[in-house]
Structures are given as structure tokens and as C-alpha cells.
């Protein structure tokens, strides 16, 4: 590969992007990060007519219908909730569980969270490591204390683990009101708020309530419900009865405030291609 094909630079992000994005040598911008920063960069790129791909935040709903295989839902959603200590853009965030299976789901999901081995990621038996930085501990604490102040109950976790390293306990919350911060802002941490629902229309209204639309999940054994829920989610990616996202050959991207463009599949490549039309009259 010729020298100069790849450059890596690190520094103060705003200084770097404000210098590079307007520069005529730069033709395309792709960004993975928060929605507020993504909007700033997209605006800057727009002012200079640069194409962009924006993979931004999410607040993924995970719906468990009354006919779901609850054990399967607990195991798959649990693994993906706590992967990378919840610091994943497509992590399930709002757990919406049909009232008939709600007590069973809460009990089993709480047991799953309690049994997770939290520790240094270098240890072979660790299943969840620390948060990436100290400021994330404060942010997660803020989500939990706000929820408690508004009436939420902690089923497990709810605090920092130990006093060395940025570890936070896998946390399950119930009775969280819709005006709690965690039901409206992306937590990006190991927090699972679980709420019961009664009917399809009600749960879809909640699932699509927020400005984000990155990933959405549903668990049901009814094929009619699968079809209905797949169509109803306002979300760039939908995975039903399993976690089937983020593979090279499939699109990866969001709708609404989660950004636009794709980081996977043929759509990802198209964003970097110039379409050119040539019309030629034979002589």
C-alpha cells in the first residue's frame, strides 16, 4: 500500500475536525459518536458540500411479547446489554415486557445481572469490565440517582463497584417513570430499565417515542407479530429473536437523530463512490 493512503492523527477533536473537514483535500467524512457532535460535524460538512456518513447515538427498545421464549430473551438481551459494560450504540436500553411475563422476566434478568463476573478485562473469567473513564462513572451515577429520585426501584446494582477502577455494577431498574433521564437520554452504561406493557399499539408508541432510531429488538414466537413489529419500528436496524446486527455484509446505520448513511453492506461502499454520467454521440 503506498505511503499516504492511511493517516492517523490524534488530538483535540474539535480543532482537528474544524481544520480538516473544510479543507479541499478532504472529500468525505464519516463519524462514529454522539448525536450532538454528529450534528455539528454534519453542519460543518454541509457548509462545505462534503458527503457524510453519521453513525450516532441510540436508545434501543427491546420488546418481549407474552408469547416469547423468556429464557432466550434474557440470555441474548443480557449478553448485549452488558457487552462492553453497556457502552455500545446498539445496546438494548428500554426493556418493554408484556405484563403477563413481566414478573418472570424481571426475576430472571435480575439474576443474570447479579451473576455477571465484573472485573479486569485481562482476567479470563471476567464477563464485564469497567467503564472507559472516570467521567462515565459520574454520568451513570447521575442516571441512577435521577431515576431513584423519581420513584424507580433498584432490583440489583445501582452503585460503583469497589473504589479502584471505573467499575459499575450491572444494574436493573423497575418502576422507572417516563420523565426519568434514563428513559430519554442515551445511558451508554450497564443500566437496564424494565417496564411492563399491555398491548401492541401502546408498546409501539413507547418504542418509537424518542428522536433516535438506531437498533430495535423484539422477542416473540408469533410470526404475525414478527412481521408487524418489524414494520412498525422506526429504526435503521431491527433484530427479532436474536442479535443479528453489525455483520460486514448487512447495512449498519440509523434513522432520525441516530444519523444517516450506512457503515455496512453495499450501502457503505456507495457513500464513497462518485456517480458519473457520460453521454457520447458516435462520430
Amino acid at each position, binding site marked *: 500500500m503506498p505511503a499516504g493512503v492511511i*493517516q492517523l492523527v490524534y488530538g483535540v*477533536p474539535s480543532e482537528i*475536525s474544524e*481544520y480538516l473537514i473544510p479543507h479541499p483535500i478532504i*472529500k468525505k467524512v464519516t*463519524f462514529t459518536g454522539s448525536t450532538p457532535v454528529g450534528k455539528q460535524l454534519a453542519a460543518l460538512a454541509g457548509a462545505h458540500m462534503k458527503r457524510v456518513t453519521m453513525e450516532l447515538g441510540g436508545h434501543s427498545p427491546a420488546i418481549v411479547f407474552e408469547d416469547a421464549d423468556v429464557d432466550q430473551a434474557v440470555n441474548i438481551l443480557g449478553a448485549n446489554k452488558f457487552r462492553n459494560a453497556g457502552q455500545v450504540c446498539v445496546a438494548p436500553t428500554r426493556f418493554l415486557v408484556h405484563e403477563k411475563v413481566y414478573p418472570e422476566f424481571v426475576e430472571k434478568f435480575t439474576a443474570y445481572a447479579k451473576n455477571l463476573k465484573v472485573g479486569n478485562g485481562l482476567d479470563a473469567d471476567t464477563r464485564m469490565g469497567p467503564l472507559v473513564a472516570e467521567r462515565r462513572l459520574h454520568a451513570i451515577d447521575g442516571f441512577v440517582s435521577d431515576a431513584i429520585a423519581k420513584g424507580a426501584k433498584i432490583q440489583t446494582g445501582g452503585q460503583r463497584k469497589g473504589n479502584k477502577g471505573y467499575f459499575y455494577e450491572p444494574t436493573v431498574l423497575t418502576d422507572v417513570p417516563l420523565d426519568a433521564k434514563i428513559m430519554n437520554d442515551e445511558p451508554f452504561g450497564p443500566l437496564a430499565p424494565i417496564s411492563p406493557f399491555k398491548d401492541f399499539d401502546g408498546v409501539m408508541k413507547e418504542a418509537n417515542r424518542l428522536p433516535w432510531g438506531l437498533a430495535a429488538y423484539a422477542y416473540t414466537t408469533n410470526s404475525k407479530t414478527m412481521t408487524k413489529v418489524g414494520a412498525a419500528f422506526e429504526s435503521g436496524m431491527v433484530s427479532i429473536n436474536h442479535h443479528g446486527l453489525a455483520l460486514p455484509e448487512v447495512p449498519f446505520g440509523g434513522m432520525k437523530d441516530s444519523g444517516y448513511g450506512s457503515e455496512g453492506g453495499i450501502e*457503505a*461502499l456507495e*457513500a464513497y463512490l462518485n456517480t458519473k454520467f457520460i453521454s457520447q454521440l458516435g462520430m
Partner: protein
Amino acid sequence: MTSYSDVSLMIDGAWTKGANGRTIPVINPATEEVIGQVAHAEKADLDRALEAAEKGFQQWRKVSPFDRYKIMRKAAELMRQRADEIAPIMTLEQGKPVIEAKGETLLAADIIEWMAEEGRRTYGRIVPARFENVYQLVTEGAGRPGRGLHAVELPDQPGGAQGFGGAGHRLLDHRQGSGGHARLVRRS
């Protein structure tokens, strides 16, 4: 015990310090210890990076999609071979379990490989014309890619990226397929 090396900028094919020698500390979130330093780019570094990107682009665009594919396939293979070295570096600076970090490294190799293959299939098309003796052609990019900027808002984990870059490769640029140019921008 895995050791953590300081993280450099990559400009014009060479690992380099920032023009003023400034650095940003890297903290292991599991121990709160400073485990290394990452180079801090200055404006002069960005100018060099831009100039190198322009030069690299002019060369790379002349490489056929098939030859780019062979280079990227090799890059993916090297990443797989080095996954056991790259994964603990990610864990040290970022915290996630090594098994997760290794899985992500292997997936990144798969992405590079898939995009390398897809870059060979950027077909254009011929549009039947409504006038006699007119030939209408739509081309799609292979050989006409743009130069890209890939910014990642990862405040605290530069080394994994360097591990991938150090494998010589296009992980950071996996969205670009047929040959754009990437810069990874890190925030402090």
C-alpha cells in the same frame, strides 16, 4: 503481562510524534494507572497529513480494484494473525474483556475482507439512449473514489486503533471499499 506502547501518529507511511512533542496520557480504566502516552497532533501535522493523503490518493487511485483487493485481503489476514496481540491492548486502554476485544478484531478483519471483495464489484451501467448513435454510460467509482475523513469519538482508547493501523491496514477505513483515504481523529 501485556505491555502497552506509546501511541504515535501515522503520516505519510511513518509513525511519528506530534510536531511539538505534546502527548495525552492513556489511563487503564481497570486500575486508574497511566499506562502510556498518545501523540497530540498540531496544525503542522495536519498539513503534512493532508499533503500525504493527496499524494497517496493519486497513487492509490491508479491501483486496480483487483490489486487493492489483494492488499486488503493480506491486511485482514495479518490482523487475524495478530488478534491475540491486539486484543489485550484494547482491554488495557478501554476495559472490555479480552474475549470481546478479540472478537471485534476478528470482525474488523472480516469487514476489511468483505469490502475488499465488494470493491471489485462496483459496476456501472449502460442506459439505452432515445437518440440514434448515442452511447450513455454511468460509471461508479472504482478509480474515482473520494478521499475520506473518518472521525471516531473515542476519548480514551487510541492504542487499539494503532494496533490495527500497525498491522498496516484499512480497518479504520473499512467503509471505504474501493480506495478512499482515512484519517482517524481522536479526541483528548
